[in-house]
């Protein structure tokens, strides 16, 4: 039991930190530009595939640096030549633009790397068990992922709280017009933030790629969870996104480890007939099976009881 709790906590924090790497970019972009970037998870996927391609030719470590930079540049291009063109048509058009982008990125990735999972390996230098708890070996690579995510988180915090750029970004979150009035090039700030956000998502992709499965549906399976994080945390709140990321990370990993169902708790359902069969379905669903649904259940519950999210301040 203790073993499960320890391992699940570690994995949950790890997944949560990965989610936060992506959600941070997403939520900052949303606060500044009012556009929720649908393609954010696609940048994560691009990061993983770029990292894979680079690791095949040069090695894992160059990929860790080059892939996010490349994806960040793609992000800036998308902002400069795509979103800015669409901006005049309103937020719905912006949202639809990024939505269409997910289609194109997914199709391109499928065209280049195929639909099957690619063989993205953990670098040999990290391919050993870090420690053993109760007969379970914990891979060193996961510790590396965790440390990288925490390091980036701290760096992000420092940049936002302690530097002039961070000051401008923070000001643009709440008062974009005023920042423009004060003579800052808000457009360039937007482009930079979009690029950095895409790059952060790509970092998450590069480090998560070898541990999870790198395939062309990874954006589609992660994207909705990302939006849940951002809405649950409160649209536009970095702190909320952090808490929501950890919450959902822990929730999902703990759920996967549990095999309990209503049948375990209250005994098998007796009775025959179609109604009993339908009820039996619900009765026998295990918590592990529910883990995929849990983020969405959380979303609905949050919206009913706290519509602006955990730490959100705005209503829209």
């Amino acid at each position: 039991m203790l073993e499960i709790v320890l391992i699940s906590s570690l994995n949950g924090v790890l997944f949560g930190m990965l989610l936060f790497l992506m959600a941070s970019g997403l939520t900052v972009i949303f606060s500044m530009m009012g556009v929720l970037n649908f393609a954010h998870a696609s940048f994560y996927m691009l990061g993983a595939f770029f990292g894979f391609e680079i690791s095949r030719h040069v090695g894992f470590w160059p990929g860790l640096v080059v892939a996010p930079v490349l994806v960040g540049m793609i992000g800036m291009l998308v902002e400069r030549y795509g979103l800015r063109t669409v901006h005049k048509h309103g937020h719905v058009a912006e949202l639809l633009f990024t939505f269409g982008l997910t289609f194109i990125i997914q199709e391109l990735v499928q065209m280049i790397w195929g639909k099957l999972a690619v063989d993205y390996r953990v670098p040999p230098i990290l391919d050993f068990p870090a420690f053993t708890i109760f007969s379970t070996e914990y891979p060193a690579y996961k510790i590396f992922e965790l440390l990288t995510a925490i390091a980036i988180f701290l760096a992000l915090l420092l940049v936002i709280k302690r530097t002039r750029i961070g000051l401008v970004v923070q000001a643009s979150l709440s008062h974009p017009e005023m920042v423009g009035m004060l003579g800052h090039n808000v457009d360039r700030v937007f482009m930079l933030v979009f690029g950095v956000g895409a790059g952060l998502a790509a970092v998450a992709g590069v480090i998560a790629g070898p541990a999870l499965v790198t395939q062309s549906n990874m954006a589609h399976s992660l994207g909705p969870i990302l939006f849940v994080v951002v809405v649950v945390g409160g649209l536009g709140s970095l702190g909320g996104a952090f808490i929501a990321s950890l919450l959902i990370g822990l929730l999902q990993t703990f759920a996967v480890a549990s095999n309990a169902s209503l049948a375990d708790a209250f005994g098998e359902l007796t009775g025959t007939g179609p109604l009993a069969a339908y009820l039996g379905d619900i009765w026998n669903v295990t918590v592990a099976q529910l883990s995929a649904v849990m983020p969405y259940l959380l979303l609905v519950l949050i919206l009913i009881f706290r519509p602006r999210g955990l730490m959100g301040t705005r209503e829209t």
Partner: protein
Amino acid sequence: MSDMTHTRPAGPPSGGGGFVATYGVWILAAIVLALLPQVFSSGLLISTMCLMGIMIIFALSYNMLLGQTGLLSFGHAVFFGLGGYLTAHAMNAARAAHAPLPLEVFPLAGGATGLVFGLIFGAVATRRSGTAFAMITLGIGELVSSSALLLHHVFGGEEGISLDRTRALHLFGVTFGPQEQVYYLIAGWGFISAAAMYAITRTPFGRICNAVRDNPDRASFIGYDTTTVRFIAFAMAGLFAGIAGGLVALNFEIVTSSAMGAAQSGTVVLMTFIGGVGNFAGPIIGAILVTYLQVMLSDITGAWQLYFGLLFIGMVMFAPTGIAGLLAMQAPLVRAGQFHRVLPWYVLALAPGLVALAGLSLVIEMCFQLTVNAPEGPQMSLAGIAFNATSPVPWLVAGVLMIAGFWGFRIAGRRALDAYGSALEAIRSPRSAQ
């Protein structure tokens, strides 16, 4: 398609006029719908038209949200899929109980399901609008489609729920065995649904929906609760999506969880937007075009979804009013008899545009050949010309086509816009109006 051009003028409110002016379009649409299977009688065309009819209802119901009320939903297929499932269950239950119900009424089961779930999910989702609403509907869509795999008895797991549409009460000897009879069922329900949805846009409620879309603050100042208006619109959109879902269940005689998946929700967004959200006929055009492309393009090229995404992005960036919007832009010119002045410019812009498109599709097809079709080797043919995808010549040709075509399109496109502007100016200026 022929019925597209006939239903188009239904869009802008015609205002006044006699019986023929008010209902002429609908009578014409009914005649066209009735005659279509006689003109296009091949099996493939009839089943394609069945699918188009269903998608028209689905896209129109979606436009009640996006176009009329300004609500961008990414989970609309939930009602489509649930409507399909409940119709299938209703069919099977009626068959088991030997209930004397004709097949014609079963889409109502789907509609009722859509309405009920629209009320349930709408209560949660319509508390917010804008981006948050979009995210919530996305979450609801994921929630429902992932529960579909958990609850085996309701959703039938991977295999889905199948039914037999011929085992219902036969009215007037109609068995619904042949696809043509199913076509008439779909056409009938499609006509009724489209007329009902059009009628809703003309009611005070429809107008208030538009007000909530355009200026929610003002709508609430004059005493309307915007949440309630969104809620009602959401539930009604669910109702019609449910009818479409019921028809799709009867058409394919099987419902699987993919009917309510994210891909289906995405398709309806694409259809509606490509057709045009600002015009009642937009979703109809979009549904017909997108379904046609899905059926035909997927035969021609493996990369059809990429073309689709590019078309969608292109529309969002350069023609956000959709095809119907572009057509509606020409209406004042046609009415004033000035259309001939701009038509040559359009043709002039279209030609380099097609050249650029040919270059682009050459690149896409060669990439596709070298990656996905790699086992077949680099030899390929496009438009009847055989060539080797690894040799630099076709790439060079494609590059030249793309650059030259794009360059020509930009110049000619600007000219066409100027011509349109000056033609419009000529109509509006008081001198020519007299």
